[in-house]
């Protein structure tokens, strides 16, 4: 293909310092997850289940995931934090709705990007539809899988079986060798030393806070660097997906997201392309779904930080994230009736919002803030 031939696909030798920096940041990310696990365990005094009993209502967990991700604007940070908290004793059952919520919360970023196209009515309609097709899909996924999770523990049981299989058959840092623990120990000890400057329980709370800040900074910086380092490969993947079917779209969305380690980047990238009319809503829709799957790599990476008896639970929650997104794509995209629902919803809302901006504002504030809080209020009193 002529378009890809012009790309610089070979890794440049002058880029090795940037690659070393990426490796160092991944190392910091993994260390920070380990730090959160330790801090959370000490801070809760091994009573995480009792302390988080308020979140045993799955709707509360869901809302925590939505609002936290919408505010931090990074689902990778929130899912890594959840992995760390599970390593520190948070029950997987409480964490599952939080993971689902983070999937919904992350779609706020591309919706906010679409608001920038407000000056042109048609462009705004296309851009807002492109952003909200992701919202509709993720909301539909929660509507289907949260009741299944409450009733049967579908994701938790599937992830538990898969995690047991993986831990039993490989040395995924969970074996007796604890390879990752040994590797991250110096950084964890250093960060613990900083937190331990504070007295008593504040030290362990500081560990969680420091861990969260380090994860956020590491993920943000990794994303920035990978955008530069991987742009050539991302272009090649996108070029090869043009003119192909939706499965190629899903695969390319997954691959590009794995390369840049940010679903917000890949889904937001589609907004101006759809706004300009270069790609249709139907063409970008599978790409958005691929981004959902690709972003789950970060939680898997974070789970490698955890060793010992809780390692299997950390892997379990990371696999919940993977399975939730794989199952959602397989079910919703696999069934034609369900597949078209996010498309119809996004087209309808886009047309409505282009006529009156208040509908777009109501969607943004309603879905990401008002509705979640109302859900907590309703389920607390009923």
């Amino acid at each position, binding site marked *: 293909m002529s*378009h890809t031939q*012009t790309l610089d696909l070979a890794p440049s030798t002058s880029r090795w310092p940037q690659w070393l920096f990426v490796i160092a940041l991944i190392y910091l990310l993994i260390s920070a997850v380990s730090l959160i696990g330790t801090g959370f365990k000490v801070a809760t005094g091994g009573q995480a289940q009792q302390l988080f009993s308020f979140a045993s209502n799955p709707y509360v967990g869901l809302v925590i995931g939505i609002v936290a991700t919408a505010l931090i*604007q990074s689902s990778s940070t929130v899912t890594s934090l959840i992995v760390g908290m599970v390593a520190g004793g948070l029950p997987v059952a409480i964490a599952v709705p939080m993971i689902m919520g983070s999937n919904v919360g992350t779609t706020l*970023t*591309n919706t*906010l*990007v679409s*608001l*920038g196209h*407000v000056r042109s009515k048609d462009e705004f309609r296309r851009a807002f539809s492109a952003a909200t097709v992701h919202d509709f899909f993720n909301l539909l996924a929660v509507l289907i899988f949260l009741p299944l999770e409450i009733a049967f523990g579908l994701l938790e049981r599937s992830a538990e079986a898969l995690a047991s299989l993986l831990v039993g058959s490989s040395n995924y840092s969970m074996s007796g060798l604890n390879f990752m623990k040994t590797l991250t120990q110096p950084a964890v000890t250093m960060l613990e030393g900083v937190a331990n400057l504070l007295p008593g329980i504040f030290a362990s709370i500081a560990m969680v806070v420091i861990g969260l800040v380090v994860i956020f900074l590491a993920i943000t910086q990794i994303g920035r660097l990978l*955008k530069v380092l991987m*742009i050539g490969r*991302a*272009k090649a993947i*996108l*070029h090869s997906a*043009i*003119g192909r079917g939706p499965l190629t779209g899903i695969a390319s969305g997954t691959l590009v997201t794995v390369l840049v380690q940010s679903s917000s*980047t890949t889904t*937001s*990238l589609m*907004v*101006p*392309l759809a706004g*300009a009319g*270069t*790609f249709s809503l139907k063409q970008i829709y599978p790409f958005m779904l691929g981004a959902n799957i690709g972003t789950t790599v970060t939680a898997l990476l974070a789970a490698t930080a955890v060793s010992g008896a809780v390692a299997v639970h950390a892997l379990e929650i990371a696999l919940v994230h993977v399975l939730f997104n794989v199952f959602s794509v397989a079910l919703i995209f696999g069934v034609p009736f369900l597949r078209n629902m996010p498309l119809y919803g996004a087209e309808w809302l886009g047309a409505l919002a282009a006529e*009156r*901006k*208040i509908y*777009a*504002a109501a969607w943004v504030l309603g879905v990401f803030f008002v509705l979640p809080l109302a859900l907590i209020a309703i389920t607390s009193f009923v």
Partner: protein
Amino acid sequence: MDDLSRLSKEELQAILDETEQHIADIRSELKHREEREQHQAVDALELHLERSKVNWGEVKAFFQQVLAELRSGSR
């Protein structure tokens, strides 16, 4: 319609085949142009990446427009 009624079945079939071929050619040309534009957009991915960041100034401008819309609606 009068012209068509004078044509034989074979001639009508030939016109239909030719028209269908024309439509297929037009569809193919449209698809080709659409894909060419998409390849060009991907070539300029760096520019689109710049436009894919949340611009809080634009978000603020959007909500100001919403408020203006609400005020004008209440009058």
